[in-house]
């Protein structure tokens, strides 16, 4: 029944219908014991307008139907466990299995958030130590693990900046953001009620002190900067820029999404940064890209510590406890205490790597990116030719002569077995292809990838139509992204 004609019918991998198209009327995948609670008639207890008149069209499937359906779908996934994934700025590195082993220990996995604190001491100690580790790694004074993702960390950080400035008498109105920033930065500012002023990067792809000085005034609450930036370049004027911002009473926010390039080597706290968020699901190897959830802790300098989201974990003489008695706190940003399972994984990773190991992470991530950069610059235009950090940005400039655009190259990469890189970002590079190999890939993997990219570059010249019509190999061929965006269908409608 599932071995239909058309795309997806290849060997033993079948096209997979939706779960709604599986099963048969009356088939059940569960059996429940007799309820001890007497049945109630909903019509007597709930307003008629809130009751459905027809049964919901739920799938009627057996346990095996469900298992096969989702196992098959999972086999279609492309993941870091199945192949190289050079998705720029996402740090798709290997998530060590020891993280999973530790996170599954029942002492962590079976905790209930409402348990008395006296029975949570191990978990609290782990959170306390992770707060300390993150602060130490980044050169900051204190941290909160609560935000559930990078963007929520940004939001929490800006809330703290706002509360701090408000206490100084004026919350101010603007935030400065370089044009090489992550797209979430302006969104977080808008969510906090700040107007965004975009700063132009200099010719070298980094922010210059002159541009910041010109834009900086007493209405600027903060500068929000990503270091290394999304061009994969280190912002070398960071300390000088931070001083310009501080001199006018503003604060400096650093987006830590690209921390993988400098972890253990440089501390943003030493460069004048007042708030930093971490993406545990990038630098600290917790699952990522649908395997989440994410975790975006924030670390701050002393002046902002009173404003950290509530609660933080504190150490008492002989125990650990949630500290709620923090009147200046911006409050909770997440139900309960953040995504605790991710803390266990990140803590495990830090302890496994140690200080020396983390330094090697940065060294190898930068080495791998520069190896890609040097090898691929023969075939693809490099937007900024200097030494890069953890990622480098190519464009379709050389291939455009053959009518090939970045999107075509990205699709063709799928035929060679690779997840495409981040494309058309950063916005300041036309036709950008942003590649981040990460430190966990071997020389052989990189060489194989470079060979594939070389083939694609040649195909652009010799058989551009093949590239334009890619992908040819995957189960699903070229999707009509334009139609999907122009005529989105949000609701599943049963056939027949």
């Amino acid at each position, binding site marked *: 029944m599932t071995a239909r004609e058309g795309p997806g019918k290849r060997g033993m991998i079948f096209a997979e219908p939706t779960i709604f198209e599986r099963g048969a009327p009356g088939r059940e995948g569960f059996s429940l014991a007799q309820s001890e609670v007497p049945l109630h008639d909903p019509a007597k207890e709930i307003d008629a307008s809130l009751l459905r008149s027809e049964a919901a069209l739920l799938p009627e499937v057996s346990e095996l139907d469900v298992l096969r359906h989702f196992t098959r779908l999972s086999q279609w996934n492309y993941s870091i466990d199945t192949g190289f994934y050079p998705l720029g700025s996402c740090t798709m590195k290997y998530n060590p299995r020891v993280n999973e082993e530790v996170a599954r220990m029942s002492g962590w996995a079976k905790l209930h958030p409402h348990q008395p604190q006296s029975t949570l001491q191990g978990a609290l100690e782990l959170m306390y130590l992770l707060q300390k580790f993150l602060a130490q790694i980044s050169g900051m004074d204190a941290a909160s693990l609560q935000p559930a993702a990078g963007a929520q960390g940004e939001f929490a950080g800006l809330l703290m900046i706002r509360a701090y400035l408000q206490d100084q008498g004026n919350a101010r109105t603007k935030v400065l953001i370089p044009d090489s920033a992550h797209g979430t930065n302006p969104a977080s500012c808008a969510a906090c009620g700040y107007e965004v002023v975009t700063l132009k990067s200099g010719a070298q792809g980094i922010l210059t002190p002159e541009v910041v000085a010109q834009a900086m005034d007493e209405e600027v609450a903060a500068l929000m900067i990503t270091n290394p930036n999304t061009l994969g370049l280190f912002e070398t004027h960071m300390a000088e820029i931070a001083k310009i911002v501080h001199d006018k009473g503003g604060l400096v926010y650093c987006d830590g999404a690209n921390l993988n390039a400098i972890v253990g080597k440089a501390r943003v706290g030493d460069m004048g940064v007042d708030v930093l968020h971490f993406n545990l699901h990038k630098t600290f190897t917790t699952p990522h890209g649908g395997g989440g959830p994410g975790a975006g802790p924030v670390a701050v300098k002393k002046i902002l510590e009173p404003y950290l989201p509530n609660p933080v974990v504190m150490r008492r003489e002989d125990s650990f406890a949630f500290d709620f008695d923090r009147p200046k706190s911006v409050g909770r940003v997440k139900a309960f205490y953040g995504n605790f399972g991710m803390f266990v994984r990140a803590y495990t990773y830090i302890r496994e790597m140690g200080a020396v190991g983390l330094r090697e992470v940065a060294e190898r991530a930068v080495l791998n990116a520069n190896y890609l950069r040097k090898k691929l610059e023969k075939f693809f235009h490099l937007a900024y030719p200097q030494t890069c950090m953890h990622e480098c940005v190519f464009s379709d400039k050389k291939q455009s002569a053959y009518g090939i655009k970045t*999107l075509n190259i990205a699709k063709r990469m799928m035929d060679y077995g690779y997840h495409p890189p981040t494309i058309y970002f950063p916005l300041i590079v*036309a036709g950008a292809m942003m590649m981040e190999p990460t430190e966990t890939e071997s020389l052989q993997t990189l060489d194989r990838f470079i060979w594939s990219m070389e083939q694609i570059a040649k195909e652009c010249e010799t058989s551009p139509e093949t590239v334009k019509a890619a992908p040819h190999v995957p189960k699903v061929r070229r999707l009509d992204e*334009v139609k999907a*965006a*122009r005529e989105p269908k949000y609701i599943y409608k049963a056939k027949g």
Partner: protein
Amino acid sequence: MNCPKDLKYTSEHEWVSLDGNTALVGITDYAQDQLGDIVFVELPEEEETIDQGDTFGVVESTKSVSDLYVPLSGKILETNDPLLDNPGILNEDPYGDGWMIKVELSNPDEIKELLEAEAYEQLIKEEGA
């Protein structure tokens, strides 16, 4: 890239067609080409007063989302609503059926800040370099 001589331009890639005290505004051929297939358009309300440099709408393509900037201050007389249902018009005919708003100018002095076709062509040449 097509830049009609009778239009004026902004460095943010809007074009302006002047007719007495009113102006039609849209995005340039270069802009639509850089954006790629446009999938969503947001336009302002008619009768709304807008100031030069403010954003008056949004265009979204499969690549990115871009704000549209008001080239000349004034009041919106009319918006090109068919674009909302059929944003592809912007790709097909940016200078014709793809016009976006019609503005009654409140400060015609601002016209001299706009670019002539030659200057705009130079600008996109530099941007593409």
